[in-house]
């Protein structure tokens, strides 16, 4: 039990655990598992505007989603405070490829050389956080879902649009990994 809390889970525990959020949310209140719509609800709640895409009753449609997302943040805090922080045991070939991109610190969940406030004002830190974040927000809104909404919920319901979206996710990810990252890292 102690290792269950402190150690990273094997894939056959992690994957099914993620999949179970689909039936859990359907049974609690007929909600479709998906996180990116929270960004739309936040826009609708924070910035009053005449833009039609944001003109709906976010409290009735999206409050559940915003509460769920607040929970995700709390879950991150709980996980971080339970069990000693561990480095992510990535494969040697990934480590080698990233070293060639001048990443040397492999501690923590994300490289400190890119994802920390001191790096934020450098190109290496700014592009992953700000440009990457922007593309995540624009892309998920355009595609109408992210990894949870399309890759998990959509594929689980055998929806063709979600399959197209997931192919797009991987096309974009491969382009960014193999062509964009070497340009600025």
């Amino acid at each position, binding site marked *: 039990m102690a290792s269950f809390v402190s150690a*990273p*889970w094997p*894939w*056959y525990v*992690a994957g099914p655990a993620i*999949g*179970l959020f*689909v039936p859990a949310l359907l049974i*609690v*209140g*007929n909600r479709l598992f998906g*996180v990116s719509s929270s*960004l739309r609800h*936040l826009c609708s709640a924070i910035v009053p505007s005449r*833009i039609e895409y944001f003109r*709906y009753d976010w409290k*009735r*449609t999206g409050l*559940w989603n915003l*509460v*769920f*997302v607040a*929970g*995700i*943040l709390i879950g*991150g*805090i*709980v*996980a*971080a405070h339970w069990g000693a922080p561990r480095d992510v045991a990535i494969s040697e070939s*990934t480590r080698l490829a*990233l070293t060639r991109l001048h990443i040397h610190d492999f501690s923590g*969940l*994300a490289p400190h050389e890119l*994802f920390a*406030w001191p790096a934020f004002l450098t190109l290496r830190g700014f592009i*992953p956080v700000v*440009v*990457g*974040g922007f*593309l*995540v*927000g*624009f*892309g*998920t809104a355009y*595609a*109408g879902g992210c990894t*949870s909404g399309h*890759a998990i919920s959509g594929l*689980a319901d055998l*929806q063709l649009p*979600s399959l197209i*979206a997931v*192919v797009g*996710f*991987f096309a974009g*990810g491969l382009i*960014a990994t193999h062509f*964009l990252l070497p340009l600025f890292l």
Partner: protein
Amino acid sequence: MSTTPGTIQPANADRRVQPWSALACYLLLGTCFGFVLTKSEVLSWFRIQEMFRFDSPRMYEIIASAVVVAAASVAFIKRLRLKTASGDPITIPPKQLGHGVRYAVGGTIFGLGWALTGACPGPLFALVGNGVTVMIAAIASALVGTWLYGLLRPRLPH
């Protein structure tokens, strides 16, 4: 609520105000999800890099087994016509294919961002909880991106 033709309302839109008990459930489920995202390490930039470099099957095994469990659950719910905890029918609205452009182009744009930040929207919030506070800026930037999509939406192909 606007009913102008062409408006895509968020999925599962309904007109009922959420009772507190339901919101407490969503908060608890969200907390569990944030915990799972951390313990599975899918929120790690390193793991996402490993996935896009095909150096380990781990991420593919996680995503595939998540889809299988979710698909079996959905099939089970449909077959038994299960109801929600409050007795309402469970329905999954089909996504509109249209020309499919939004899924291919929007999906690719998101994929670019996924590999750069190493995080999709759920992990962004979980990372902030894990102390990677610079991801607050990534979330702010994602909100700008979503807002810009809303602004440009009438002119974009879907």
